[in-house]
């Protein structure tokens, strides 16, 4: 049996750990420093919260940490026993399970647990589960829970939808100002949005380096590297980090360094990562000389519409144009475009049992895209966090068989 191949580490990973460490350290000191904390969904109005002086904590990021550390599978049943179904979002159930048991990977970062919120702010652009998730904590901590309700399955993004979401964002200002005990400074909001926009431009450029053949980065690298784009957008630290990472990737391209040595095939990953299996999956693809070059997931934190000159409408446009809340035809067009841009040979659909909103294989899309693009697909059954829903051997065989098929064609 062959030895498992090693993933190529990034030089900038040390800086990544430092940037993320400082972010969590600041959250850990919030109470001591008298700083207000807002919990926010990962595609919620983080810029508005930062402009009002909140430190922003993202429970979904914590959910991913619980998955990646494989703590989730032990914690999910605790939430199930409290009435949260095993069929709903396993970020939610693992996070609430973590809260019930008082166990969290944040302890390794020097925090006793998630910082106490002063307010919780969600956006249903991703799913409705975030609302129920945040309301659980709202009841427990007895703090306000505010929300933006974004339409789902949006086709073309009409001005009426933008008007509606922008108005909802504006209506957040007054209650948030009361909690923050400060007035919103429009200049500060524009500054934060500009930093967020710069973060997006750089993060997108990072992901686009994978269009090179061979690709200098994989989807599995991206799931780690996306941390600052999720939790630190609107902060200078994220902008500085992505400039460093982009420089390293450009150097890899110049030096002909491949993320997957001997890259034979290029795949697209549609759906959630399987957080607890990132390493074995990454290693299997390296062994098969196949690079997962692009994904919907990593690109979901690209917000090109952000415009400091038009804060609320541009936030509304940015957060409403994301893949997850679009119609199937829009999603298909997006994936078709990505397939062409990244020269992909096939698509992997991850059917995540507890995340229907991020599982796009259930209504015939793989077959439609196969017919449209002439590219084969593979569906993997699993979950983002609940490894009870994942069969390692079945998945390994499926992936190996898929690459065999690509080699035959």
């Amino acid at each position: 049996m062959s030895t498992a191949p090693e993933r190529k580490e990034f030089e900038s990973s040390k800086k990544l750990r430092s940037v993320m460490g400082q972010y969590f350290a600041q959250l850990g000191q919030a109470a001591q420093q008298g700083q207000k904390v807002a919990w926010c969904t990962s595609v919620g109005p983080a810029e508005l919260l930062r402009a009002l002086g909140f430190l922003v904590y993202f429970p979904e990021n914590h959910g991913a940490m619980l998955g990646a550390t494989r703590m989730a599978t032990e914690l999910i049943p605790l939430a199930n026993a409290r009435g949260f179904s095993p069929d709903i979002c396993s970020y939610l159930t693992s996070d609430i399970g973590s809260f019930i048991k008082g166990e969290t990977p944040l302890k390794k970062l020097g925090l006793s647990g998630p910082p106490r919120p002063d307010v919780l702010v969600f956006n249903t652009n991703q799913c409705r589960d975030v609302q129920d998730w945040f309301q659980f904590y709202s009841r427990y901590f007895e703090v306000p829970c505010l929300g933006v309700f974004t339409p789902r399955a949006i086709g073309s993004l009409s001005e009426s939808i933008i008007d509606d979401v922008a108005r909802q964002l504006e209506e957040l200002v007054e209650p948030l100002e009361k909690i923050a005990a400060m007035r919103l400074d429009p200049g500060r909001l524009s500054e934060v949005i500009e930093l967020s926009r710069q973060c997006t431009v750089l993060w997108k450029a990072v992901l686009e380096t994978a269009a090179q053949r061979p690709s200098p980065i994989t989807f599995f690298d991206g799931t780690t590297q996306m941390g600052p784009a999720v939790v630190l957008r609107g902060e200078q630290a994220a902008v500085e980090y992505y400039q460093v990472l982009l420089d390293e990737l450009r150097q890899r391209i110049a030096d002909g360094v491949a993320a997957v040595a001997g890259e034979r095939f290029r795949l697209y990953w549609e759906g959630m990562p399987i957080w607890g299996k990132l390493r074995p999956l990454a290693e299997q693809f390296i062994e098969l000389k196949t690079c997962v070059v692009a994904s919907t997931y990593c690109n979901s934190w690209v917000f090109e519409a952000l415009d400091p000159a038009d804060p609320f409408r541009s936030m509304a446009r940015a957060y409403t144009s994301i893949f997850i809340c679009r119609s199937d035809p829009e999603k298909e067009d997006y994936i078709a475009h990505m397939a062409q841009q990244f020269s992909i040979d096939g698509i992997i659909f991850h059917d995540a049992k507890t995340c229907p909103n991020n599982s796009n294989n259930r209504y015939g899309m793989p077959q439609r895209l196969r017919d449209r693009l002439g590219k084969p697909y593979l569906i993997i059954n699993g979950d983002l966090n609940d490894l009870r829903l994942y069969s390692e051997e079945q998945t390994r065989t499926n992936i190996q068989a898929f690459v065999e098929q690509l080699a035959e064609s």
Partner: protein
Amino acid sequence: MRYFCGIDIGASAAKLVIIDQQRQVVAKAVRRSGVDYTLAAQRCLEEALAASALAATQLAAAVSTGYGRDNVPWATERRTEIACHGRGAFHYFPHRMTVIDIGAQDSKVIHLDEQGRRTGFKMNRKCAAGTGAFLEEIALRLDLRLEQLNELAARSTKHIALNSFCTVFAATEILERIRAGEKVEDIVRAALHSVVKRVVEMDTLHGPLVLTGGVVAHNPVLAQLASEAFGTPALVPPDAQFVGALGAALFAAELDGRPTC
């Protein structure tokens, strides 16, 4: 003469085939996979070599497949059972087709084009419904040996439907049928029909239907039920249980062989 070996270590049985340069089967062996896949592969090899009076040094290459494909140290190369069942079936039926392999632990739908190239495939999801494991569970519930199932099902005169997706719940349904006084042969046929129903819903057919694997080899009634369910005759190659191992041997013959055994 050079010879080529294919070894298919499945969840239940290990199957081995040796072919010659004309792609003719010269020996085969089967035994329980057990808990030591490496040993099962070795025993199969020894048995097949003894039966064919060949020496291991005459084997130019070997390809392993199945769940235990990584546990055959003398294999030149590994291939998935999906590739091997496709290749083995194409050896007997060289045209565009859909191969359905029903194994002990999983079912596979494999689409091949006119040249035998794979154009798509699907495996069952994580559940044992539609596999041999389901029939093992049902046989246990009915206090029958697996070898009795086909003969009983062939005697059935009444259609009974089992509706549950879940093996365990299907077994509960069977208890209800027993309580209702249904005949054992009708219940067994219903169980085989249930396997076919799970397979039908996995994918659509492209071209003729070919069935492979140990479950259909031991239960020819299954082919009849599949023909009815798909509305097209189900073709079953000779030695259907060995099709994966044969496919592996055919892949071995395509390798630039070097003595490895």
